[in-house]
């Protein structure tokens, strides 16, 4: 399969359109992920689909890209990141933005919404709205089906038990048969939008915090650098970038400085000494 011209074309489409590198060791995923697309579009098999891909039918290209993206997520996944957000980033921003009382947060690849809803729960805990703060929480994903799911905010029992403590589950969700629906209050806190990280960032506000976790690893070096640079363009000078803990030691987080004792937390530039003392616990 990997030496087949249509495979090369698929790899090229994924790289060009979504920045995704299709590693040879992951070619086994192609069949599993593309078979639903084969059935949906009525193709005989995967080679037929790949052949048709050459004609650039947009709905098919989009469906293939969506099928090949990884959407695995969980509430409070990698809990340490959320602890850093709650204990380091948020207190510093509350102090730094005390005059405007505005916070703008962007989740770059939100899958079915577990990450932005986890952030919304922490913001809700902090009772910022009660203190007159205006919060903009934007969550994007390249996969429109995932965005639709996130907007609906309904999760299976299996999904909610991954990382969601029982008290948060009961207080923030209502049970609908075997599923759980997030509260309207939390759902209204998040604005969801389908967005490709390779497209223009012009519509985004200047952000105080950007969550870009477990995304960069799917890109090649050039795309990573481009995405990080463009995130840097919309990130406030003292804004925070949160990547996955496993990504924090990688050299590709160029243009950012790793916060002391906080894996995965980066700043555009190292905060001034007096400020750093208040940032690092």
């Amino acid at each position: 399969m990997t030496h087949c011209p249509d495979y090369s074309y698929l790899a090229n489409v994924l790289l060009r359109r979504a920045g995704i590198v299709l590693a040879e060791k992951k070619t086994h995923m192609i069949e599993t992920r593309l078979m639903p697309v084969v059935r949906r579009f009525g193709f005989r098999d995967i080679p037929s689909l790949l052949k048709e891909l050459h004609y650039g039918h947009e709905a098919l290209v989009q469906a293939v890209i969506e099928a090949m993206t990884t959407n695995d997520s969980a509430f409070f996944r990698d809990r340490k990141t959320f602890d850093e957000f709650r204990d380091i980033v948020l207190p510093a921003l509350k102090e730094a933005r005390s005059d405007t009382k505005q916070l703008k947060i962007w989740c770059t690849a939100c899958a079915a919404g577990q990450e932005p809803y986890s952030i919304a729960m922490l913001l809700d805990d902090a009772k910022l709205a009660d203190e007159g703060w205006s919060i903009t929480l934007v969550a994007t994903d390249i996969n429109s089906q995932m965005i639709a799911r996130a907007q609906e905010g309904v999760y299976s029992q299996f999904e909610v038990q991954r990382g969601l403590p029982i008290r948060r589950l009961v207080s923030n969700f209502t049970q609908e048969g075997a599923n759980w629906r997030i509260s309207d209050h939390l759902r209204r806190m998040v604005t969801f939008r389908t967005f490709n990280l390779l497209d223009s960032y012009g519509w985004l506000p200047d952000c105080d915090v950007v969550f870009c976790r477990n995304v960069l690893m799917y890109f090649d070096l050039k795309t990573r650098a481009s995405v990080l640079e463009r995130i840097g363009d919309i990130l406030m000078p003292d804004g925070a970038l949160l990547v996955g803990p496993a990504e924090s030691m990688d050299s590709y987080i160029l243009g950012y400085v790793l916060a002391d004792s906080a894996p995965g937390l980066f700043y555009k530039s190292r905060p001034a000494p007096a400020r750093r003392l208040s940032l690092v616990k």
Partner: protein
Amino acid sequence: MKTCLVVDDSRVIRKVACKILADLSFETMEAENGAEALMACRRKMPDVILLDGQLPQMSGIDFLKSLRSETKGNHPVVLICTTENDPTDLSEAIIAGADEYILKPFDRELIAAKLAEVGLV
């Protein structure tokens, strides 16, 4: 070594849970209903109880209420087990004193994650 009491009317589920817990370095005990579980607790209070929410006769919630009325504070930690098709009322479970929940069928990763959340591994 920490101890765990597995309460479930299914022998197979008790066996699977005990194997997983033994792998996680827990000493395990078993009970197949709420009355047996209460007696086991009176003999030796475990550190954690893995409790089926849908026990016959004395339900998991009723067992939990009895247990909490006999013990002080939050000890032992109780993880209530629920199923997708027959979900336990988790609000009721919290009021009765449950600390966390686990969906059956569970695996090692899930049990370890939930035990980590309550600070036991």
